[in-house]
């Protein structure tokens, strides 16, 4: 039978007093032999407790590296070159590995794209769950097991007590991703970083997982940073969304505003190029060219070579995020049209 889920409407805490996660001036670089690759360049944003922030962008935009920086899992030679990451007021980007490991798992949970490789194929899922629980929470074996079974039930695994002793390969893709979500929630974290959690799943399973994430986030009051290239998933799940391009945030704001009233030319082009199952369009809007390579990011606004509205200032000065009607956008042209002094 089809399930009807009722999701309690969640308010967007953009004006929340103390943000749960606060990122300021974050820069992630990869020094290689020939050149310096800048994956993320001076971005700042915050997530309120219980909020779902979508981070959307295409390949090479830097969204996965942002997530990796927050979790503390950037592969060397990559490193955080500048900026601060604060979780509940406490700085986590400069923690020693021991401390970071405690934070990861206890306060931050992670969900990655491929459920197949996220689980160790050699251990039962029950064992992986209880191991995570026992590492972060002061529970004995019995209590840990009970909590694990309860988590499995909560993520929708039928017959949780029995399936506790099953191995990952005995689960289908969608079920595995539910187990991964259970793992992420095991220690009751305040923040979950989900990197493309539904990309590898079928459309109908995607819908189930999205609903699950929303429900869990609401019930446990967990903040979620949802990284994806799929705008539709963001539309369904997120409260606010940040659009990234070439390592920078070009627009950020409430989901409905970014989708329906975008201010930045890239966001506008992006929305226009997404095919829809309702609208009839002869031709999809097309942004010519491609995202610049990480070692050849243009000066000024990174988008200017492809932007139909670029002016002289765009080529020399990098725009900062500024409030344009309903969203914040980093665009000289958009800022000019809403007032403020800009020479064109």
């Amino acid at each position: 039978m089809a399930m009807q889920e009722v999701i309690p409407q969640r308010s967007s805490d953009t004006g929340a007093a103390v943000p749960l996660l606060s990122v300021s001036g974050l820069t992630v670089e990869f020094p290689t032999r020939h050149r310096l690759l800048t994956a993320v360049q001076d971005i700042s944003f915050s997530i309120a407790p219980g909020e779902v922030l979508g981070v959307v962008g295409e390949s090479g935009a830097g969204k996965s590296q942002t997530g990796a920086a927050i979790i503390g899992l950037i592969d060397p030679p990559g490193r955080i070159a500048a900026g601060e990451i604060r979780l509940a007021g406490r700085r986590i980007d400069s923690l020693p590995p021991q401390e970071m490991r405690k934070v990861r798992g206890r306060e931050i949970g992670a969900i990655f794209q491929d459920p197949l490789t996220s689980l160790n194929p050699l251990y039962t899922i029950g064992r992986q769950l209880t191991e995570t629980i026992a590492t972060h929470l002061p529970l004995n074996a019995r209590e840990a097991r009970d909590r694990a079974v309860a988590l499995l039930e909560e993520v929708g695994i039928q017959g949780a007590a029995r399936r506790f002793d099953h191995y990952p390969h005995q689960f289908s893709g969608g079920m595995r991703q539910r187990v991964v979500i259970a793992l992420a929630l095991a220690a009751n974290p305040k923040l979950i970083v989900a990197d493309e959690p539904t990309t590898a799943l079928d459309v109908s399973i995607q819908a189930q997982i999205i609903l699950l994430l929303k429900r869990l986030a609401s019930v446990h009051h967990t903040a979620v940073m949802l990284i994806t290239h799929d705008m539709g998933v963001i539309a369904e799940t997120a409260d606010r969304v940040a659009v990234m391009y070439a390592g920078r945030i070009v627009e950020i704001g409430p989901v409905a505003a970014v989708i329906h009233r975008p201010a930045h030319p890239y966001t506008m082009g992006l929305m226009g190029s997404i095919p829809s199952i309702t609208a009839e369009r002869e031709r999809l809007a097309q942004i010519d060219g491609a995202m610049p390579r990480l070692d050849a990011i243009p000066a000024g606004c990174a988008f200017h070579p492809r932007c139909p509205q670029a002016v002289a200032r765009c080529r020399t000065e990098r725009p900062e995020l500024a409030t344009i009607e309903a969203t914040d956008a980093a665009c000289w042209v958009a800022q000019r049209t809403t007032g403020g002094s800009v020479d064109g």
Partner: protein
Amino acid sequence: MADALLALDDVARTFDVSPLWLDRVLTRQPRALLKAVAGVSFSIAPGETLGLVGESGCGKSTIARVIVGLYAPTRGTVTFAGVDLDARGRPSPEQRAARRQMQMIFQDPYASLNPRWRVEDIVAEPILALAPDIARSELKGRVAALLTQVGLAAADGSRYPHQFSGGQRQRISIARALSSEPRFLVCDEPTSALDVSVQAQVLNLMRDLQRRLRLTYLFISHNLAVVHHIADRVGVMYLGRIVELAPTHALFGAPQHPYTRMLLAAVPDLGLTGVARTAVAGEVPNPLDPPPGCAFHPRCPYANERCRKELPELLPAAGGGTVACHAVAERRIDATPLVARA
């Protein structure tokens, strides 16, 4: 149809995935037969784009490969421009000529080009297969023309695939497919691995080429929005069979089959911000052990006794399409359109 370019008649393809004979005997396991395609019939008119959608395991990729001859059908016939492409025995000259008018574009832009070959050699290969004695200058000219036709530069021919982005590689694949001047292209998820804006470029390109070169497409995808954009008619597949086949606006506006309706309701769409959605229950069953009767009945809210025993046939339905569903045939489903989308 008399003037159909491609026609499939009750095509089936079964794979024997049984464990090795010795293991089977020792552990007393039965043979495992995977019915990837369990009886599919449709036709495509010249100049048309038929979209084929479905989730993983529904058989759409297998159908594509049966059509281009990578697999032989276990049953049924594939006819192209009136020629029966029976794959048994040596192909006749008519069959070879028919096959040359078909080409295929694959999903993975990184695996569909030989990493050790230069782009010009990749694009030239089909030309050389047809005309091995072609003059070098003429070959170079044709390759250059093809590359510019798909939006690349002629100078890109001397580079290697890894020097190009995903979208550019798909363009190279398209150039290769077009180099033998085919009439029909089978496109297996050609944009699924591409970013949204790159996808838009490639879809626009494919549309332009179709109009200019009068091509016919079979477009396979799991992305309903893309299929809605590019296809004239759409077929929905589930566990090896077509459950609904209708013109695009009819299928998306007034879907008949319960699975189609559920699929459409499950698609995250930008217009749905804030509206509660219906999730599809359950998962696609194991194709090695499909449910009896209608394969969808375990997940279907309208299933009755007949659905559990009897396989439904594709019958004409309102809107100009065909549906394989007992509940629709018996008028047990209220076929009003879904929740109006903002």
